[in-house]
């Protein structure tokens, strides 16, 4: 194998699994250390810069970082299973405990740059674009059909998961940057908006249509059948405050979980979730399923809805066909009837939460925006530009339903594109991230990070008493970590951004690092092809997708191979190294956002 080029930003970025997995590439270990140090405001600002909604995401994020967390691969099986650091809930600790940070936020510039940008929809994608562009002097206008900004954050996420005050605060930070918010202004013609001579238009209108279920009885029982996301939004705005005693929620995603838990709070006594697939294959995050179960909501699996049953014109129940999973030779799943008699489930109301769709009836098909055969706009995956050079898409509107953190990532990228385009640059030339690699050595065996590995298991976030939360839909269920628990949880972080950097010409091959490494990561051996080399490591290589760090140029002609997979970043290799061939260096990667940094350097006049 060739020696690793650690100058490539991707190499060490990949070692920071959480940051690599995060669509917005938030520097997770960086803010976790700040939380451990009690520097909550700074931790919040690291987040705010990267993911725009720390308080909101700290309660609702889909947390792609957590399954990636190295802690989940190295923790001893002392608990039932190894668990990642509670990254998401630590973010909330920063948001809950910060001081007033408004002084540190960018200001609306006194002079605008004369460019006008329209953002359609006031959800997370548009608000991110607004946050990135408004401080640069763009005249940014956000349009939304609702009276208040936030989009799905405000309409679809129930208050018991996300209090209104948190939304108001974080959406407010953005609107305070001099963003024009046109509330209650639903855009019903993109053609007309294009006619208003905006320099760029960003479509962040989400996936606003809930999928319906067309089975017999649907029309007749319409009064008691509700589309999940529409119903949630009506609940959010207070238009709906009660539901029947017996409720069936159809669907296995996170919306279904929000629906059933909301129904339980609005008078539903017997609330059930009924899903076509098995429990494991459900789309909902495992913790959301657990939360629903905790509130006494049963989840019934392998039941396919057949029809709605009515009596005297009123919904009384539903009929389901029992199925089982059957897998073909290629491992594809098929749901086949078991042949057992159909199951009848009584109910007063049904909430249909079986998926969301995009819907663009307001975009004329003759204005230069091409759509594919599924009715989705053709959007460039890098620039987020549509086939119309001035129209950009992001969030769920671009590639279908995902989640808030993806919307934020799209927003940042679209903002870079808009900024480059309006400065006459090629938006396909993307800016490199800012990276920094600095030694953490303070003295002999002293590092500027806490390298002691905590043996603690993952802490559970405390919950408010069920008796209280089920009575009032506005009472938040999760109480969040207190500062002390937050500290202990933060200490579980392995500081994967503090990299082991090896300088072969200093190495005397004394084996001290090999002997001390608790994870048997390090091998000195003859070079070979990767597949062969992976067979000859000190400890077996379990995840070929995790890189080997290779350095050559040793006196004996051997190479140093380090399996990055399970490294604890404990610094013991560097502490045991007599010559300083190993050093612990903090790798900080920051995505480059819209602004002068994302453009080509301008030569200054001499």
């Amino acid at each position, binding site marked *: 194998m060739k020696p690793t080029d650690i100058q490539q930003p991707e190499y060490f970025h990949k070692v920071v699994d959480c940051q690599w997995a995060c669509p917005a590439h938030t520097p997770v270990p960086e803010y976790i250390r700040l939380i451990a140090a009690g520097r909550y405001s700074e931790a919040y600002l690291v987040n705010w810069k990267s993911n725009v909604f720390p308080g909101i995401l700290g309660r609702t994020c889909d947390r792609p970082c957590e399954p990636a967390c190295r802690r989940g691969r190295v923790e001893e099986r002392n608990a039932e299973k190894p668990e990642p650091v509670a990254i998401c809930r630590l973010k909330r600790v920063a948001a809950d405990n910060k001081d007033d940070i408004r002084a540190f936020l960018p200001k609306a510039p006194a002079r605008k740059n004369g460019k006008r940008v329209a953002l359609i929809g006031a959800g997370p994608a548009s608000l991110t674009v607004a946050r990135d562009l408004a401080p640069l002097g763009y005249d940014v206008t956000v349009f939304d059909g609702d009276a208040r900004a936030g989009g799905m954050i405000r309409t679809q996420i129930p208050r018991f998961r996300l209090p209104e005050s948190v939304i108001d605060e974080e959406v407010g930070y953005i609107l305070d940057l001099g963003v024009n918010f046109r509330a209650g202004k639903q855009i019903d013609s993109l053609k007309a908006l294009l006619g208003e001579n905006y320099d760029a238009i960003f479509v962040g209108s989400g996936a606003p249509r809930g999928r319906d279920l067309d089975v017999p009885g649907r029309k007749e029982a319409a009064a008691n059948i509700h589309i999940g996301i529409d119903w949630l939004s009506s609940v959010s705005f207070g238009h709906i405050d009660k539901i029947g005693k017996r409720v069936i929620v159809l669907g296995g995603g996170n919306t279904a979980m929000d629906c059933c838990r909301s129904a339980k709070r609005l008078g539903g006594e017997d609330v059930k979730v009924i899903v076509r697939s098995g429990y494991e294959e459900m789309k909902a995050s495992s913790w959301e399923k657990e939360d629903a179960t905790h509130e006494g909501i049963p989840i019934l699996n392998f039941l396919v809805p057949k029809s709605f049953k009515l009596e005297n014109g009123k919904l009384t129940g539903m009929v389901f066909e029992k199925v089982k999973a059957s897998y073909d030779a290629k491992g594809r799943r098929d749901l086949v009837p078991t042949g057992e008699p159909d199951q009848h489930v009584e109910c007063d109301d049904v909430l249909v939460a079986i998926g969301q769709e995009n819907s663009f009836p307001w975009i004329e098909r003759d204005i230069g925006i091409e759509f594919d055969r599924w009715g989705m706009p053709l959007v460039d995956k890098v620039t987020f530009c549509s086939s119309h050079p001035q129209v950009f898409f992001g969030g769920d509107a671009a590639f279908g339903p995902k989640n808030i953190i993806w919307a934020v990532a799209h927003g940042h990228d679209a903002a870079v594109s808009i900024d480059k385009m309006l400065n006459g640059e090629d938006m396909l030339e993307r800016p490199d991230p800012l990276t920094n690699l600095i030694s953490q050595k303070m003295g002999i065996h002293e590092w500027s990070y806490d390298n002691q590995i905590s043996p603690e298991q993952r802490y559970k976030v405390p919950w408010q008493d069920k008796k209280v939360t089920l009575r009032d839909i506005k009472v938040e269920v999760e109480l969040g970590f207190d500062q002390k628990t937050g500290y202990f949880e933060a200490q579980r972080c392995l500081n994967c951004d503090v990299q082991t950097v090896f300088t072969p010409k200093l190495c*005397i*091959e004394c084996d001290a690092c090999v002997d*001390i490494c*608790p994870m*048997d990561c390090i091998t000195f051996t003859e070079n070979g092809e990767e597949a062969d080399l992976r067979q000859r490591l000190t400890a077996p290589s379990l995840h070929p997708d995790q890189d080997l760090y290779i350095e050559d140029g040793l006196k004996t002609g051997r190479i140093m191979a380090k399996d990055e997979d399970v490294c604890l970043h404990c610094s013991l290799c560097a502490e045991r190294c007599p*010559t300083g061939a190993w050093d612990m260096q903090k790798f900080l990667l920051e995505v480059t956002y819209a602004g002068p940094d994302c453009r080509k350097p301008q030569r200054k006049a001499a």
Partner: protein
Amino acid sequence: MTYLAKPKLHHPTLAKNAVGYTRRDYEGKISTLCAGCGHDSISAAIVQACWELDIEPHRVAKLSGIGCSSKTPDYFLGNSHGFNSVHGRMPSVLTGANLANRDLLYMGVSGDGDSASIGIGQFVHAIRRGVNMVYIVENNGVYGLTKGQFSATADKGSKSKRGIANMDEPLDLIGMAMLLGATYVGRSFSGDKRQLVPLVKGAIEHRGAAFIDVISPCVAFNNHAGSTKSYEYVRQHNEAVNRLDFIESREEITAEYAPGEVVEVPQHDGAIVRLRKLAADYDPTDRIKVMNYLQQRAAAGEVVTGLLYIDPKAEDLHHHLNTVEAPLNQLGTRELCPGSVALERINASLR
């Protein structure tokens, strides 16, 4: 030196041996030696060898004297018995312990100061008596704890860190062990665990006085140009005579070797020590030839390593003295005070 304890977390595949322990279970406290000390690698080799041989930690006694090397028993086999004796007196304490209980595995860990200077008399007699033990000298040719004076094993002409050449003849521990009848003699290098681990395993399985001289560079005081015990010098001058593939029983032999490539040395208990030859015509069972060979190669400036000598007919001190097999602490009053009739008989035999 490291202040942090080694984290308990370990590689997910870390395996347990036949007696239910992982390799990590054979470790001791965190080492307080200098970073890069060869001694730490020797500790790691002992840990590896004991794990591979499925040795129960409580069946091992570690004995040492004074010095950097003699500190190391604290850094391996944390669940074994240990005794840190007066400077240079490890061999007699080990001999006494061995006489009292032959069931334990005795591991004497010493250095060139502890064994070749203050304890040379002890070293000589423990070897001469054939005590069943693993005697490891962690040999760095320098007094590290007192900041770098030449030790008795420093080669003539080798230079100290301050550039002064040593004018005294070195004491040849391997040669002495051979002369005094050690039945298992090896030399290795702390920077070569592929050689060292099998050598330690062989010594553990050997019944008799097993002596291993391990060259172990002192990074603080003897790893400079002009030293003959530095990592670089030893790597350049290392001449291995064989590779030891220690095999526990005849049935397990699977590897194929070309004829003349291998030396097999059957042991008392039916096990076989197999050596892959690296030097042609090297016969590790011929004591006289080995001693000649070693002197020749030493004169040529080579550091000969490998399993240098092994006596297939090794015997130990208990055999010589015809001692009772049971450990002394398991003998009851009846065995210890056989009564006046027995006493009469003994007295009668002496008249």
